[in-house]
């Protein structure tokens, strides 16, 4: 018969593994690692900051949370899911990364991502580049007018804004209206050609969401809610966002 279970003395150190396990279906399989290394061999971030996905997971499993937080690697990983895709046990390493980002004091998180998130919180446009609702409307209308006036056959091109009841609410990355507005035109032409019933909205028009990358849950939620409400308020059936 088996002896009595061996008890390991000493305080349990890890919180990462526990916290992440709580929020994931089936605990994210975090304790099922076979240490095969498929994750690391196929990860483009392997080797950056002396880290790789397997090492990261093993450190978490050993309760080395403090050491994990000393590494910048969580910001160099793109949470692309390739590690989880190739993992025979489907271990959710990206969620562990997200939690690590969340465990950094907000003021220490990368300035660029934080600044983009903060900027998006300033207007209901949700633009990480700070373009307002009025800015967006002005640029779209200005570009549209020029195309209608100068391109033969496109006199009737549409770029609807706040069109009530349109089937598709289309988001637009801030980069186009802010830095290269002509790049919006091909998209409009395609939607026009196929006869899509679509609209932009002044509220929540910006596609990007850096608050999610920042791992700021409350701000991320706020951005999504502003955008979702904009889609609902216009009575649109589909929300198109490829970000």
């Amino acid at each position, binding site marked *: 018969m088996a002896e009595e279970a061996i008890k390991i003395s000493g305080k349990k150190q890890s919180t990462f593994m526990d916290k992440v396990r709580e929020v994931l279906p089936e605990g994210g399989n975090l304790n099922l690692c076979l240490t095969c290394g498929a994750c690391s061999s196929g990860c483009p971030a392997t080797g950056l900051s002396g880290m790789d996905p397997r090492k990261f997971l093993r450190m978490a499993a050993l309760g080395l949370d403090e050491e994990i937080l000393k590494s910048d690697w969580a910001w*160099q990983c793109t949470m692309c899911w390739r590690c989880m895709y190739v993992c025979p046990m489907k271990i959710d390493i990206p969620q562990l990364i997200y939690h690590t980002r969340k465990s950094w004091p907000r003021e220490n998180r990368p300035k660029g991502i934080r600044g983009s998130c903060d900027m998006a919180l300033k207007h209901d446009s949700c633009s990480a580049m700070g373009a307002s609702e009025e800015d967006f409307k002005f640029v779209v209308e200005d570009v549209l007018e020029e195309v209608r006036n100068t391109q033969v056959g496109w006199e009737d091109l549409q770029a609807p804004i706040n069109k009530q009841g349109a089937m598709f609410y289309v988001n637009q990355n801030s980069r186009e209206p802010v830095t290269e507005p002509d790049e919006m035109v091909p998209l409009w032409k395609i939607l026009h050609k196929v006869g899509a019933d679509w609209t932009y909205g002044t509220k929540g028009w910006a596609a990007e969401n850096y608050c999610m990358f920042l791992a700021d849950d409350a701000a991320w939620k706020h951005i999504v809610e502003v955008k979702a409400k904009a889609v609902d308020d216009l009575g649109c059936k589909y929300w198109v966002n490829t970000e």
Partner: protein
Amino acid sequence: MQDPCNQVRKTFGDAYAEDLRFVAKQVVGEENFIDMTPNRSNNYCCGGGGGALQAGYTEERRTYGKIKFDQIMATGATYCIAPCHNCHSQIHDLSEHYEGGYHTVHLWTLICLSMGCLGPNERAYLGEDLAELLMPETKEAEE
């Protein structure tokens, strides 16, 4: 053709990757389409996702992207289609940084080019070989 992680692996899967290829082949011609290896759900991330473009670890981002760069160069293709905003920025930057010489295009650019309706100001990402191709008719703006 870059398979964007967020659209393919993380959301709609290989069926979506096939749709992307269907569209791309329709517009450039099947004989001009070259796949990277690996691809579809097994594709490598370009290195621009997850906030990396704004995270400030520029050297690490480009080292990450070297795998993508090598993958693209191995195809010998002149153009890389990036149907994702993040991918477009990153893959464009990789070409400039590592002097790959390939062009990075949005899918919308090629769709409109193939339909003969890509306006003169909408060709910023085309190379010299396609810059004047199928130029649609324009007129002076009325005052």
